[in-house]
């Protein structure tokens, strides 16, 4: 049958922003669920005597050294990313292409640095996923977080290309991009505290 002519454009309702918020909620549940399982394993671990620290939970093998400096730098980097992403929103709202591009560029650079820091942590720890329960869970949790960071990097690239490609009215996309980085930072705060601080 013949199609009717398309309807006129309905009033936009921040579809990308809402979609990003929903995706953020899903991602937060992913990390939240994984941290909960981690804490359950940690709580259920038997107690053993450590030469250095007395009686401790037999969870993280004593020989493992987690590079905390890199983890802390990741956290700080993500806080700065939030500022940069918000700077991009501020500039985009004022139709300032130069500063929007600069802010999105710094965001991408810091995102790359965070992913690089995670890879450095894996390399410096020098353990394999097949060495035990702690190891496999460490790789699963930090791997999931890294995948989310990669998705944030892709989001930054998409926002930058679309905005700098001429769609300067797409402030909502830049705002949604900032929201996604806020979510990623919150998720990494949980990972940082549970895995890198509490271990």
């Amino acid at each position, binding site marked *: *049958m*013949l*199609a*009717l*002519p*398309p*309807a*006129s454009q*309905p*009033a*936009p*309702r*921040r*579809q*990308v922003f*809402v*979609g990003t918020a*929903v*995706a953020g*909620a*899903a*991602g937060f*549940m*992913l*990390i*939240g*669920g*994984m941290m909960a*399982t981690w804490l359950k*394993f940690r709580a259920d671990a038997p107690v053993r005597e450590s030469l250095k620290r007395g009686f401790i939970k037999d969870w993280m093998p004593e020989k493992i050294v987690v590079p905390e400096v890199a983890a802390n730098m990741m956290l700080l980097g993500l806080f700065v990313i939030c500022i940069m992403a918000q700077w991009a929103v501020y500039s985009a709202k004022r139709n300032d292409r130069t500063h929007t591009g600069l802010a999105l560029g710094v965001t991408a650079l810091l995102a790359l640095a965070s992913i690089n820091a995670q890879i450095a942590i894996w390399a410096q720890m020098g353990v*394999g*996923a*097949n*060495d*035990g*329960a702690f*190891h*496999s*869970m460490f*790789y*699963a*949790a930090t*791997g*999931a977080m890294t995948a989310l960071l990669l998705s944030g990097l892709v989001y930054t690239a998409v926002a930058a290309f679309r905005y700098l490609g001429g*769609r300067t*009215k*797409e*402030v*909502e*996309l830049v705002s949604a991009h900032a929201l996604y980085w806020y979510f990623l930072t919150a998720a990494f705060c949980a990972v940082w505290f549970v895995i890198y601080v509490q271990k």
Partner: protein
Amino acid sequence: MTSIETHLPTDVSASTPAIATWLTTADHKKVGRLFIGTGLVGLVAGLVLAILVTFERINADSYQILSVDSVPQVLAAVRLLLTFGTVVPLLLGLSVAVVPLQLGARSNAFPRLAAAGFWIWLTGLGLALAAIIGNGGPNGGNSNLVDLYLAGSIVLGLGVLMTATSIAVTVLTNRAPGMGILRAPLFTWSSLVGSLAVILAMPVLIGTTLYVYIDHRYARAGFGGNTGVNQWIGWALSQPFSLLLAIPALGIVFDVVSTIGRNRLPQRSVAFGAIGVVAVTALATVTQTNITLPWEGAKFLDDAGTKIADLLPFLLLNVVPVLGLLGVLGLSLLTLKPSKPVISAPLTFVLIGLLGILLGAAAHIVGLVEDAGVIGSIYEAGVYVPITFGAISIAFGGICYWGPKLWGRSISDKAATPLALLALLAIGLDSIPYYIAGFADQPTGLVNGFAYSGPQDLWNALTCAGFVVMLLATTAFVGLAIKSFTSGAAAGNDPWDGTTLEWATSSPPPAENFAGVIVVNSATPLADIKSASSTGKVA
């Protein structure tokens, strides 16, 4: 203001082969039909396997058809097919296809995401089933294929998550002007609530499965290897997760009852609340391990403080959802009472389905009282199957009801109505014998090597008969649907004299659904338009 391109991606040209059109479509109506069609195939496959398992249980002394190695795999395949191969695609498919029409929208939000969700879900389901066929499901003997099963489960979950995200964002952002959320049809509301519940619960399942996958593939140190798979992710294939997945079905009940009953819902806000209560409490229950109740008979009130501490979470997480379901049933009956509706297939299917869900949810409460002694018994199947069959029956009702809008043709009402009665018979046969066998201590997860006093062969034969009846009803329904949708009489644009916006466009709707933007002033916008037209107030 956004300038994101939200136009539906133009379908490929008329010269493109039909198969390519279906493979690349992002039209929400086609994606919905893909989900529904695949779900019906999954249902037939799941029922055939269920018949094999229940037939095997009739004689518990020796294996008739299956082998000792294949039993856990077939059991896993049945649950996977009935849950993620049937209930999920049928309800997601209806939501994807119908919700944008109910909202007066040209398309769903992120149409390519929903389409990708379908193909990813299908790929994940295929991988998981392939692993099961190769003895790689839970407790499987082929470790490499157990890895494949876990990977397939993650992929499947991602597909469901993507489609649910599209549905939730559609409801939140694509409503017609003037349509506040409380003016949205009840199916739209239940789709939103159900999608949000999936968006919150599914990532937890994906995260846990990821842990199990990495541990199983590399370490086998923390999650119990092949035998630990069900312990960690089996909760997604049982109650209360099955109730969570069935939430969109509750909205179908309200929409069908109010349209065919030719009556407005008496308390729309209560209906919204009832669906919300079921969703919130089911989600809360999913995030907990099952809250059981140590009753201890007459001694229950001896230590009142402790007992109340036991009772409160039990009531909140297990009894409140049933109260919500009773609210849905009560409001439905109130809607039907004054107008004496004619018996029709959609109405019969949805009311029978609602009874099934209610039966399963109520039985779940009894099963969690520790002193009933049925924890770990086959009673659990008597909770899962009525909820699943109930959701399927409601989905059948939804297909009969919205079929004209999806395919442009109607399913024969006279021929479909008796099938609803077959579904009722199947629900009865696959619940009550399970309860009796459960109280007699027949273990769950086994098909052989158990014995208890009483006619155990009879109870297991009855459950087998229940699956056979459901298979008959399903194959007849599928045949009827294919016949109706290929050579049936063309349906009118508004065959049910509906009041919501999906009936305001042609059957089937054109590519972008509506010719113009409809401004909504009430919860029954089409009734308003008809009323205004009849009084000559609208040009």
